[in-house]
């Protein structure tokens, strides 16, 4: 039986995230966006309430939620501020390689600090010369006795300036392409680990992004995740897990855009009546609501598929791609409903457009998602 009703547990998790988003995040969203401020006090509160490390199982001290519950929470947080949400959920992305590739000993050793106290971790895959072409990494790993030596540079790394642990993908031999990639957990204090300065971004300005350079950084063999040729698979399986929440984040942005536009349309008067009574605006709101609703259902279904043990590559790519494209359109239309005011930074909707843009790019660009969708699709016609 297909069921779209949330359980009481799911409802209470969603309500709790909504309360946090409204009470703690939303009041600071505009200010952090304007100043490009990383509101660590908010992230610390999110950690205290258990809103970080959502995917870490309870036996390691995390929240141990299924992907569906994670998505419910992410949508609520993103409704208040997508940038803060990116920083809050970055640990889920960065710690996933440890969950997927780590030994029992590594999981206990590496995950415990994140559950015992507020710490940030960063997922280091993308490089200046390539993001989507993950098989062509240039960061080198060289075995030297009981350790590996890392050299190279990663870019667009979320939370990097503030992280205490980096999960890093490097190649033993570029000619081996995917098969030469190794995954490591690299503590910040390792000599030769050099996070760069914070980037100025178009959106998600409450989140911090920087490069991370590795200059002869020595990582013990005990911190290698999985086998030497397993890195690429760990990276891809990580993204299979974390792609769906980007659909949820996009849904949260779109919901915020529709909420603002609908409320404004009932207040704003033209030609003697609220603009919500003009069909031109009604058609916009109806289209926005449809795109939003479809985004949420695709996201829920992708999460449900993965929670039931499916790989969900097709479903999660569809959810991420559709929902982020939809969030762009819905945010764009929200600005149009606001007219000139929508273009002003004093009003909340232009931020939504800038925030939505990133969801089309990161965690696998929407072009890559479409390639994945087409590949999965065509296999079924073999």
């Amino acid at each position: 039986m297909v069921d779209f009703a949330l359980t009481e547990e799911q409802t209470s998790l969603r309500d709790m995230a909504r309360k946090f988003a409204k009470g703690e995040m939303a009041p600071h969203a505009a200010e952090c966006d304007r100043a490009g401020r990383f509101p660590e006090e908010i992230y610390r509160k999110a950690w205290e309430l258990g809103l970080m490390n959502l995917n870490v199982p309870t036996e390691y001290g995390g929240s141990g939620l299924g992907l569906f519950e994670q998505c419910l929470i992410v949508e609520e947080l993103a409704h208040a501020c997508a940038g803060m949400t990116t920083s809050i959920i970055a640990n889920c992305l960065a710690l996933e390689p440890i969950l997927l590739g780590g030994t029992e000993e590594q999981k206990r050793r590496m995950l415990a600090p994140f559950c015992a106290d507020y710490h940030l971790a960063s997922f280091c895959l993308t490089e200046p010369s390539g993001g989507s072409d993950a098989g062509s990494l240039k960061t080198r790993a060289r075995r030297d006795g009981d350790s590996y030596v890392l050299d190279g540079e990663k870019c667009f790394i979320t939370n990097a300036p503030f992280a205490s642990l980096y999960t890093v993908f490097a190649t033993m031999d570029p000619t081996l392409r995917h098969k030469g990639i190794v995954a490591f957990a690299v503590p910040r204090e390792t000599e030769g680990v050099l996070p760069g300065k914070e980037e100025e971004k178009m959106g998600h300005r409450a989140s911090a992004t920087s490069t991370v350079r590795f200059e002869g950084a020595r990582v013990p063999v005990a911190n290698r995740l999985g086998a030497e040729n397993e890195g690429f698979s760990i990276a891809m399986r990580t993204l299979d897990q974390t792609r769906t929440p980007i659909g949820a984040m996009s849904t949260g942005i779109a919901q915020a855009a529709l909420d603002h536009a609908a409320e404004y349309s009932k207040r704003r008067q033209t030609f003697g009546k609220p603009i919500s009574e003009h069909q031109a605006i009604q058609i916009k709101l109806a289209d926005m609501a449809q795109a939003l609703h479809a985004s949420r259902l695709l996201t829920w279904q992708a999460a449900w598929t993965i929670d039931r043990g499916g790989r969900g590559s097709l479903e999660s790519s569809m959810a991420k791609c559709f929902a982020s494209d939809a969030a762009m359109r819905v945010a764009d239309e929200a600005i149009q409903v606001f007219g000139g005011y929508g273009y002003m930074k004093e009003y909340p909707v232009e931020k939504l457009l800038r925030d939505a843009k990133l969801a089309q790019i990161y965690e696998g660009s929407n072009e890559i998602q479409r390639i994945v969708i087409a590949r999965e699709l065509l296999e079924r016609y073999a």
Partner: protein
Amino acid sequence: MEIAVLVKPVPDAESRLRPDPKGLGPDPEGVKWVLAGYDESAVEQALLLKEAAPGTTVRAISYGPVARAEEVLRAALALGCDTATSLEAPPDASTDPVAVARALALALARHPASLVICGKQAGDDEAGIVGPAVAELLGVADVGVATNVRWDGGTMALTLDRSVEGGLEQVRIPLPVVLSLQQAWNDPRTAKLPNILKSRKAHIERIAATEVEAATAPSASTAARRVSFRLPPARTGAQMIDYRTPEEAAEKLVRILREEAKVFP
């Protein structure tokens, strides 16, 4: 030390209330029932006292239709209360506060507490009678409009503040006592995610409607009954001021404040 905190399910502030078809009360259809306002402050106070005196346990008690009462009890458990008791309201039960107090006293007879804390009134009907009525039924003292309750020395007495007209009273009172708390003077905590998950699986003691009915019967025949409920008249719209310069806007605003709103002399 046993503390009992009395909590009432009230409609979420974001729920849209409308009268039921008979116009006798708010239509429960589509309403979300939550722990809110005065009761949230009361739970927070109970937890602060618990944290200040190790060994203290807090029992949350609620009266109402089972689903609603258990929803707010789970919220109280997620915040840190130790145990919970739900009193099932009989079908078509009176909303008379004295009948509610009798039901709550039934739970308190089963689980005696030296300190009973509640909000000074409910966030929905704002009757403000349940706290004093419970004290009367238990035969103990009660203090109303209390804030900032702390242990006075050991755990046999309390010191608390009362905001009164034009000043702040400090009151000392020995236990046992029923305190009705002012709202929003403390900053109620938010439940942590793992505690929410635990609270969903927690055991809630249930006292059945038949037992509750027997305990509340004496007051039912004399109870006040609500005979109608309607929404307040719709607010009139905001007045927009047309202006060309800020000076003109200010002049017009001052004129309206003086002549129409009569805020200024």
